[in-house]
C-alpha cells in the first residue's frame, strides 16, 4: 500500500519551521482508521505523535497528565497534551531529580525533589517542551502541546487509530523527537480511500553515548 503525494492549493502551517505537505484521502465511511508511522528503514517509528485537525475535530482534556521519572528516564518519553492542561512530574526513582526546561513553549525548573510535587505545571502555550534533568544528563523527555484537533502517540507497532471521519480531517501532522527532515510530516487536504494510512518519516538516532569520557571526542579533528 502506497501513499500518493501531489500538490494541493490548500495548505496549513502548524509548527514554526513547518513545511507544507499534501495528502490525498480516499472517500470512505466514517469509521475508525489507522495511521501507521514507519521510519526510513520500514521500522515502526516509536514515540511519533500523529495530530489531525479539521473543522469538526475537537478534543479537550482537563486531566492532569503524568510525566513520570522511572529508572532515570522520563516516562513516557513523549507526552502529548492539550493547551492549558496540567502535567504532574512524579519521581518514582529513589534519587532526586532536577527537572528543567529551557524551551520557549514553557520554561521551568523543579529543583531537586523526590516524590510527587504538590503543584502540577500548566502548559499555556502550544509547542514542544524539551525536558532535561540537571543531575542526570541522560534524561530526556518531550511534552508536545496542541491547541486543537486530535492527537495521539503511536503504539509499539507505529500505529494509531482515529475514529473521526476522514473527510473531516483537513490536515495531518506527524511529530517525532528525532525528525531529520521536517518537510514530510505535514499533510493538508482531504483524506480519503483506504482505512489505513502509512506514513514514512526520516528520523535520526542520536549518537550512542560512550561511557568512557576520555574517548568521548575524536582526538583531533583534522
Amino acid at each position: 500500500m502506497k501513499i500518493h503525494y501531489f500538490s494541493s492549493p490548500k495548505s496549513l502551517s502548524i509548527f514554526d519551521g513547518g513545511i507544507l505537505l499534501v495528502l490525498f484521502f480516499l472517500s470512505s465511511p466514517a469509521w475508525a482508521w489507522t495511521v501507521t508511522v514507519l521510519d526510513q528503514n520500514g521500522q515502526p517509528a516509536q514515540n511519533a505523535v500523529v495530530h489531525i485537525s479539521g473543522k469538526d475535530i475537537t478534543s479537550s482534556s482537563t486531566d492532569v497528565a503524568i510525566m513520570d521519572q522511572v529508572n532515570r528516564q522520563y516516562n513516557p518519553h513523549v507526552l502529548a497534551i492539550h493547551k492549558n492542561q496540567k502535567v504532574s512530574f512524579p519521581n518514582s526513582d529513589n534519587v532526586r531529580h532536577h527537572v528543567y526546561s529551557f524551551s520557549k513553549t514553557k520554561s521551568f525548573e523543579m529543583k531537586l525533589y523526590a516524590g510527587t510535587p504538590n503543584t502540577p505545571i500548566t502548559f499555556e502555550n502550544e509547542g514542544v517542551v524539551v525536558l532535561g534533568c540537571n543531575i542526570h544528563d541522560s534524561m530526556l523527555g518531550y511534552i508536545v502541546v496542541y491547541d486543537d484537533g486530535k492527537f495521539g502517540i503511536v503504539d509499539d507497532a507505529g500505529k494509531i487509530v482515529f475514529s473521526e471521519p476522514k473527510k473531516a480531517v483537513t490536515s495531518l501532522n506527524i511529530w517525532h523527537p528525532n525528525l531529520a527532515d521536517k518537510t514530510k510530516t505535514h499533510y493538508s487536504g482531504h483524506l480519503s480511500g483506504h482505512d489505513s494510512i502509512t506514513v514514512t518519516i526520516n528520523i535520526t538516532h542520536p549518537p550512542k553515548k560512550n561511557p568512557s569520557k576520555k574517548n568521548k571526542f575524536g582526538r583531533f579533528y583534522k
Partner: protein
Amino acid sequence: MKLSLRSHILLPFIALIVVTSIAIIGSVLFATRNNINNQAEETLHTGKRIFERLMSVRGDQLITSSEILVSDFGFKTAIASEDKNTILSALENYQQRINVDLMMIHHLDGTLLSTTNKKHPYQLTKEIIDKTRENGGVLTTLLIKDSAYQVAILPVMAPTTIAWATVGVAIDDKFANELKTLTNLDISFSGNTKNRDVNMASFHISTLPATSTKQRQSNEEMMLVTTSQEEEFLSLPIPITENNDFLIHAYVFSSLTSAYAQFNPLKLQIFVITILAFIFSIIGALLISKNITQPIAFFVKAARRISDGHYNEKNAQCVQNTREISELEESFRKMQTGIAERETKILHQAYHDTLTGLPNRTQIKDHISKLIKKGHGSEFSVISINIIGFSQINDTFGFDVGDNFLKTFAERLNETTGNNSLAARLSADDFITVITSACLDTISKDTKHLKETLEKSINISGIDIAVSIRLGVSLYPEHGADAEQLLRRSGIALNVAESRNICLDFYEPGEEKEHLKRIRLISDLGDAIKNNDLVMYYQPKVDLHTQTITQVEALIRWIHKDLGFIPPDDFIGLAESSGMMPDLTRWVLTSVAAQAKLWRQQKIDVVVAINLSAHDIAHDGLPSFITQLLSNHQLTARDLMLEITESAVMENPHQAIQVLEQFKSLGIDLSIDDFGTGYSSLSQLKSMPVDELKIDKSFILNLENNKDDQVIVQSTIQLGHNIGLRIVAEGVETQAAWHLLEQWGCDKLQGYFISRPVPADDFSAWYRHYQASEFCKNQIPNNLELTRKNNI
C-alpha cells in the same frame, strides 16, 4: 731528471700518508656530518612526538574543562536566557574560571551568538558543525584573524542541543616557549586560510629569529633552514590542521650549526692526530730510506774506489748489518779480490810473451824508458836478435819442436843476460835484450860473448838443432834519446846486417833516414799509380839502314811532389819488394798502349818498346793482359816490342824462356836489354826466342877511346848478326861512336846524341821535325845538338 733512491722511497710514502690522512679526515667529517644530521633528525622526530603528546594532553585538558563547562546548569541557563549581555558576561566569567583564552557561543546554524574575542567575530563552518554534531564534539585548531587557538567545540545540551560552545587556548609565544623548554627545540607555527571568506586569516609565530631561506632536503620530510644570523637548522614540519578552510603547521627546529660546533673539538683532535701521524710517518720514512740509501752510498763509494783501481785496500766496514747488506758486502769484497786477481793476470799477459814467459815489447820499452829516466850518464845497448832460419826449423821439425826450441832459447837468453839486464821476445824469432855496460869498449866483447853463448846447439827430443843468430845493436845515448828510437834503430841495424848478410851490425847515423825514405816512397808509389803521377818518357832509336826513326823506348819517370825526380832504379826495386810491380807494369802497358794508339792516329809510325822486369816475367797473366790491351786500343802486335834485361832472364832462364815464347807466339818482337852484363851463355842465347840484342851502354859510352870496348862491341855485332839477331847500341853520345857503330854494321842506335828521353808531346814534335829535315847519313842536324845540350 733522475730521482734519487731516497726520493723514490719517500715520495710514495708521503703520497700514501697524505692520501690516508685525507681519507681519514674526509671520512670523519663525512661521518660526523652524517651523524649530526641523523641525530638532528632523531631529535626532531622525538620533538615531534613530544609536541604531539603535549598537544594531545592540552587537548584532553581542554576537553575536560569544556565538558564540565557546558554541563554547568548555570551556563546552560545563561545561554538559554538569550540575553546577549548575560551570555557575554557568563562567557567572560567562565573563561576566567577555567583559564582559557577564547570562548564563543554559536547558534545551531553556526552564526555567532557571543564571543569573548569581540574584535574578531568568527562563524563556525557547516563542516565543523556537522562534525561536532556527529561526534558529540570536536577538538581542533582554529585560525582567527592572526591568532591560532586549540579549541574544543561542544554542543550545549539543554538537554537537546541548543547552541555550540567553543572553548579555546591560544597557540602563542608563551605556548611555543613552553614547548621549547620541554623539547629543547625551537618551534614555529604558521597557518593561513585557503579561502577568502569571512574567516580569512594568517598566522605565524616562532621562537626563532627571522629565517631567510628554506630549502627542502631531497627525498626527505626535513627542511634545511638558514636564519638571518647564518645559523643552520634542520626543520621538521608537523601538520596540525588541514581542512578545506585552512592549513596550520608546526615546525620543530634543531640547530645544525651548534651541533657542528660540538664536534669541533673532536675535529681538532683528529686533525692534530693526523698531522702528528703525518710527521711521525715522514720521520719514519726518512729513517727507512736513510737505512737503505746509506749502505748504497757506501757501495757507490767503494765501487768508485775500485773503478779508480784501488782493489786491494780494505774498505771500511759498512755501518749497517742487515743480512742482505752483509751478503752484498761480502759479494763486493769477493768481486774486489777477483778483479784484483784478474787484473794482475791481464797485466802479466800485457807485458809478457805467452809462449816463453819473457817480457814483451811493451815491457822492454818501459824498461828502457826507466833506464833513461834513471840517467846519471849510464850507458846501455839495445840488441835485436834474430834466429836465422827459424822457419826452416818449424818446417822441418814441426811447431811443437819450434815452440820448445824458442822456450829453450828464451831461457838461455834470460840466463845469459843476467840480473843487470832484461830480455824480451818481439815476434816469432825476434828477440831483444838490453845490456847495461860500464863503457862503450866492453860492448863489442859483450855482444861477442852473447853470440857465442846463444849459438850453442839446442837439443830438443834428442835432436841437436844448430842455432845461428844475427844481432843489431843501438847504443844509448849515441843512437837515440828515447826507447822507441833505440828499439827501432836496433831493428834497422839488424835489417842492415840481414841485407848485408853479416852477423852483427851497429847502427850508423843516417841509416834510419834512408830507411824512412824507402818507407815513404813505398807508400807514395801506390798513390802515384792511382793518381797518374807517373809519366812515360820516350827515347827514339835510329834505324841506320833507313836513317829513320822506327822505334822508341818507353821509360817510366816519377817526379815526386816533394822529393823531385826519383830514379827508376830506386822505385822499381821498391815496387818489386813491396808487391806493387804488377800494378805498375799494368799502368805502364796501358799508358803506352794509349800513346801508341794516339801516334797511329797522328801517323807517327813507331814501334814502342817496353821494359819488363824479372817479376813481370814471373807473372803468368801478362800475355793475356797484353792481348786484351792490344785489341782494346786497336793495335797490332807489331806496334809493341818488349825489352827484358839479360840479368832478369838469367834469374830463372827456364821460366823466362817459356814466357818469352808466349809473347813471341803473340807476334811481339822481343829484345834482350843490357846485353853483356848478365852472364848468359851462348847456348842460352841461342835458345831464346828474341829478335834483338841491345848492347849495354857501359860498352858504348867510351867507345871511341876504349879499344877493349871496340873489340867487344864489334864482335858482339858480328855474333848477333851471325845468329840472326838485330843489334841495337844504346848510350850513343858522340858522332864518333855513331860512325864506328855504323861502320861495324850495327842496326839501330839510341842515345843522347840522337835524343834524350822526352815526354810524348815533345817526341811528336821532334819526330815530325826529324822526318821533315831529311835526316841523313853524316849530317847531324843543328837542332839535335841544341836539343841535346839544353836537355843535359
